[in-house]
């Protein structure tokens, strides 16, 4: 009997402990991500800020074929369209699925909402290219420096010439 009571008490304490500490755990997780040394986003010349054209333009939220931006063919996320990432109300920001606005300089946060494991590895220094110092300040790159966001898969490139075969040495 006594043992049972003790067990109940202990489990109650454990439960309360979890309940009380959970807001702190959450707070830690939602901490604002550390800033990384990234170069400015690779905008096409003259395209940013977007508001220079979009200011005062009526917002049309209906997915459709655009008259502008014809060069962009979206090959990322089938069925997706502009406002999945771009913010209709303030074009100079990106918008996450939860409505939070993200600047273009921190676009990796936006990418990370789907590619979470990649973002984790990018922060750890595994995914993506680093230049600079192995024991000091590293130059990170935004996701969009290597992956064009509208068609993120790498295009094949020309390899540099193969080494000279011994049989070809004169």
């Amino acid at each position, binding site marked *: 009997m006594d043992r049972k009571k003790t067990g109940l008490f202990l489990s109650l304490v454990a439960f309360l402990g979890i309940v009380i500490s959970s807001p702190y755990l959450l707070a830690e997780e939602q901490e604002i991500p550390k800033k990384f040394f990234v170069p400015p986003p690779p905008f096409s010349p003259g395209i940013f800020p977007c508001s220079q054209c979009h200011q005062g333009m009526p917002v049309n939220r209906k997915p459709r074929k655009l008259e502008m931006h014809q060069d962009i063919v979206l090959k990322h996320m089938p069925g997706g369209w502009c406002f999945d990432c771009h913010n209709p109300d303030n074009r100079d920001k990106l918008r996450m699925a939860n409505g939070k606005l993200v600047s273009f300089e921190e676009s990796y946060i936006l990418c990370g909402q789907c590619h979470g494991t990649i973002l984790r*590895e990018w922060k*750890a*220094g*595994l*995914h*993506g*290219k*680093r*230049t*600079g*110092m*192995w*024991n*000091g300040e590293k130059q990170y790159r935004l996701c969009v420096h*290597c992956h064009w966001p509208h068609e993120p898969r*790498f295009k*094949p*490139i*020309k*390899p*540099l*010439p*193969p*080494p*000279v*075969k011994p049989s070809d*040495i004169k």
Partner: protein
Amino acid sequence: MKKVKKTREGIQLDRRTFLKGAALGVAGAALPSSNADASFWDSFFQKHFQEMNEAEIKQVIERLEKEYGEKYKKAITVGNEKAIPGVLFGYGLDLSRCIGCRRCEYACVDENNQSKDPQIHWITVLRFKKGEKWVDLEGSDKYYNPDLVPEPEYFYMPVQCQQCENPPCVRACPTQATWKEPDGIVVVDYNWCIGCRYCMAACPYGARHFNWTEPNRDPEEINTKTHYLGNRPRYKGVVEKCTFCIQRTRNGRYPACVEACPVGARKFGNLLDPNSEIRYAIEHKRVFRLKEDLNTYPKFYYFFAYGV
């Protein structure tokens, strides 16, 4: 015993004395004439690098800088940065990302002053057919030349010096011209190497390369920032190899191949630092080392960051 006899005909030597004298004369003629500059003798009597003190190393470096300056008509600095304490260099290469573009191979040549003709490349990119017994290195192709890479049916594996913890090349060297530095880099002293190429035979990775002729490189393209144990200009008849860009990494920079890789497949860092990129790769990814069964303990880790 009297060897020289004077007769009416002149001086008569016995056969043995004549041969001795002749040998001395030939040896004397083989030595450089009296107008050979002092630097020849300095280099002839140079001590082993690890036995020299700071002043002697400084002298050697000054001599080399002068020699290179005369040869290439530009100022070339020869560094002698020591290993950083508490550092053991490790390298990671993500095979799931490498696209076989050979950018690393040529960035290495630009950085490390290899001969262009005859060509010496410290990195070899091997191509393997997917889905076959690929650890069979003999069946790989290093001369592939498609229009575009990556090709869907192949994958690629760059191989360079694996900087073994137990390097068979070092044991093979009869003159101790190659050794492992405290930070794990296996280096060659080009002034001590006699060109016997035993180390090349001992290396299971084909990572060592021989200068069959005087290294041939456009003086315009010489990288003037060099290290005594790294990318300083080499001589005919010496062996050379990847040094993890010792002239860069001992100053905290990434190796040239890491910075050249367009897909970020190459990782570099300190194996003793638990927060380094290379440790992250080893702890979180599937990692293997090339020819592990030979007990060479390479510090070059191949891994798969993504899928297979």
